[in-house]
């Protein structure tokens, strides 16, 4: 094979080389000789017959093992292939065919574009997640009808209740029944009534105390508020309980539960759907959701605090009571993981509440008798205390048939009544 590079030669012989040719209609392997002419490749068969001519402009490189140049033609439905294994001849062809993308430079440029655009997409995704999703969720929340919210709330409630009710008390998980419980529930209703009058919400609010010893309360979409026994136990005045309940009413008024669901759905869509399946993706999704949700929550909690202050003032109670109980309850706890906590630094909250609320003497929202009754809202029914352990569960479940148990005859009625009249 000659490769004439001297242009002064009278005749420049076009390079020739051996190749393997598949014509695309039949799988037979053809050993051919290829001549790299001026306009294209001439393919000669075993008997020196011209089999085909491939123009340089049509040549495309196909995927091949190292050391093999595999050529195809563009614009052809047939998958004819020409395979050149001689590196020198392959180089000669690449010199003449510009479309072949020697060394893969064009392909690399394309990929770099892909990577850069993807990084841009990632940035835009982050911006959308941090700014766009909360804005859209806030805009969409008022459009959700109250009936849908209530359906959402009751759907979630079953799940939450069964999770919280670790001892499987069922209906007994709620306080407010039995002789002392009913009195406590009445006091609670009075307190909540004052708050409702001050708030004037279009929601049918319902407040329920449940047997959990933690200091906590939460509101479900649709207006159902759960308060824990721990809250009642740790409060030293009815205004403190009222402050916390007013904070939860703030969540209901601002429809925070629904907005959180919309935000979570938005984040799930962005990070879950758009990214598809790749290794390590799960971590990104969880991390992004956790961080973003926490930062949204801080603002939401601050807004609920402000709502609590406003409602307490209108109701005539002590607007600083919420700050008082927060400060007392978290006095001994460590700072902990701030950025991942849904409630911002308590000190900041206490300071903010006190700044909003004027100091001044106020009258407690409940009288002494009602406050005492409220404190006993979760007191167990006396029959349960005296009965043997085996039947305790049946006794409690037997008496929680609504709140009409005050008229039930009880063997230990004397002590119960005495306990209730402090």
């Amino acid at each position, binding site marked *: *094979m*000659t490769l004439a590079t001297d242009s002064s030669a009278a005749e420049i*012989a076009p390079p*020739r*080389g*051996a190749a*393997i040719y*598949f*014509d*695309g*209609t*039949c*799988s*037979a*392997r053809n*050993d051919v*000789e290829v001549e790299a002419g001026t306009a294209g490749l001439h393919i000669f068969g075993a008997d020196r017959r011209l089999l085909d001519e491939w123009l340089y402009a049509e040549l495309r490189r*196909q*995927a*091949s*093992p*190292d050391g*093999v140049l595999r050529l*195809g033609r563009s614009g052809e*439905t*047939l*998958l004819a*292939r020409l395979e050149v294994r*001689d590196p020198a001849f392959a180089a000669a062809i690449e010199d003449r065919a510009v479309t072949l993308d020697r060394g893969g430079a064009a392909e690399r440029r394309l*990929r770099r574009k*892909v*990577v850069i655009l*993807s*990084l841009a*997409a*990632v940035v835009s995704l982050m911006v959308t997640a941090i700014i766009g999703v909360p804005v859209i969720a806030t805009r969409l929340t008022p459009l959700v009808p109250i009936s849908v919210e209530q*359906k*959402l709330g009751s*759907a979630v409630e*079953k*799940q939450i209740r069964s999770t919280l009710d670790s001892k*499987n008390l069922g209906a007994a998980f709620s306080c407010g029944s039995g002789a002392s419980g009913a009195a406590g529930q009445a006091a609670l209703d009075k307190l909540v009534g004052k708050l409702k009058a001050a708030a004037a919400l279009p929601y049918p609010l319902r407040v329920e105390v449940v047997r959990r010893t933690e200091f906590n309360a939460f509101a479900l979409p649709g207006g159902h508020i759960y308060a824990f026994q721990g809250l009642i136990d740790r409060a030293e005045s009815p205004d403190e309980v009222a402050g916390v309940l007013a904070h939860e009413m703030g969540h209901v008024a601002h429809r925070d539960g629904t907005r959180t669901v919309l935000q979570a*759905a938005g984040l799930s869509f962005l990070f879950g*759907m758009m*990214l*598809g*399946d*790749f*290794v*390590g*993706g799960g*971590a*990104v999704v969880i*991390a992004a959701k956790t*961080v973003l949700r926490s930062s949204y929550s801080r603002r939401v909690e601050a807004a609920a605090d402000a709502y609590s202050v406003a409602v307490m003032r209108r109701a005539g109670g002590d607007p600083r009571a919420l700050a008082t109980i927060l400060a007392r309850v978290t006095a001994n706890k460590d*700072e902990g993981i*701030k*950025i*991942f906590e849904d409630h911002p630094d308590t000190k900041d909250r206490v300071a903010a509440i006190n700044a909003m609320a004027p100091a001044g003497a106020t009258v407690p929202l409940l009288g002494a008798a009602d406050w005492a009754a409220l404190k006993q809202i979760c007191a167990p029914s006396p029959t349960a205390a005296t009965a043997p352990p085996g039947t305790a*569960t049946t006794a409690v479940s037997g008496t929680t048939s609504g709140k009409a148990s005050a008229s039930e005859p009880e063997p230990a009625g004397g002590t119960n009544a005495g306990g209730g009249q402090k």
Partner: protein
Amino acid sequence: MATAAVFPSPIAAAGTVRFLGDEAAYWRLRIKGAALVVVTLGIYRFWLATDVRRFLWSNTEISGDTLEYNGLATELLVGFLFAIAILVPLYMALALVALELDMVALKPVLTGFALVALLGEYALYRARRYRLTRTVFRGLRFDQHGSPWRYAIYAIVCWAIVIVTLGLAYPWTQAFLERFKMRNTSYGDLQGRFEGSGLSLFLRGLPLWLLIVGPIVVALGVLSAKIDWDTLSRLIDEGDDAETGRMIGQMLAPGIGVAVAALAASFFALLLLYPLFQAVKLRWWISGLRFGDIAVTSRLRVGQVYRVYLRLILYLFLLGLLAGMMGGMTVFAVVGIVRLAHNATLTQVAAGVISVLLYVVMMLGSSTIYQVIVAAGLWRLGAETAALSGEAALDGVRATGSASSALGEGLADALGVGGI
């Protein structure tokens, strides 16, 4: 003018299958690809998948000629977007349905799961068609016909049967599904077939089944013998769930030791025998492939597969060691800095970033190691131990068929199913 009088013909003898690729090159491909996938939050995976297939196909030599993958990454991207267009409304509909009905109930969850599984099998069949039609050999492409929905239903029913029979029906369901797939596969005008028999796989796999599933069956038998069914049905009728639970606990308590021992035995048997299962299955599958008069045989040895998995364990162990050391050093460094800064927020962000990074490294590292050592390793082993008979027919195949869309690929990607 001397012309090349020698027509170099391929070195390999007719009928042999070889894998030409170099593992180091594949490591580089996968590691670089994994890094880019993370940086682009997954968008680069279409290019990585295309590169991987080009490498594996181009280095698989059959009777002297190599396969060619001519699919494009952009096709995969388009398929993915298309699949999203289908899946988004589907997921929305499922969410709405869940909201309307009782979310915690079992029936909607099971139906939803079955739907997704069905869609997954549909996607797998279509993805297989995409890959086959993008595979070129000697200028002709492969093709696949047949209804993907039909396959999906067959596959779901087969899985249900396998679960109910605790795995005993697996050989026959696999043979059935492979026959369906190969019956609908063609190379040019050469029709595919599958001639592996369920019985031969069953016989070869029976000792495995006895060692792995056997103890579980024994444990179930022992436990159910302990239960007094009369008392139990009486308690269930009474409706006292707590009491029923307690009674079940009491009845099962003496058998718990046996059950735990059986489960442990089964688990260890699974770990030890999994490579054997893979070897048996792979050899059976390759030996059953037919295209017209061409038959494929496999002389894959179990020891070769065990060597692959032992390498995997070694590399994973090294990765764990490395990650542990790097993680430990980073934690030391960060804690030192933070102690100086006295900033609580900084600790969290630092802690968060370190854990996410470590997790990503571990996940990507183990996935890459698995892909290079096991997935590509088994591909190479399968190719190197395969041989063709009747390969003279390879010279007379004629062209038919056309390319298919990448929707199946996109669906499979979005649903998280699919192999190479």
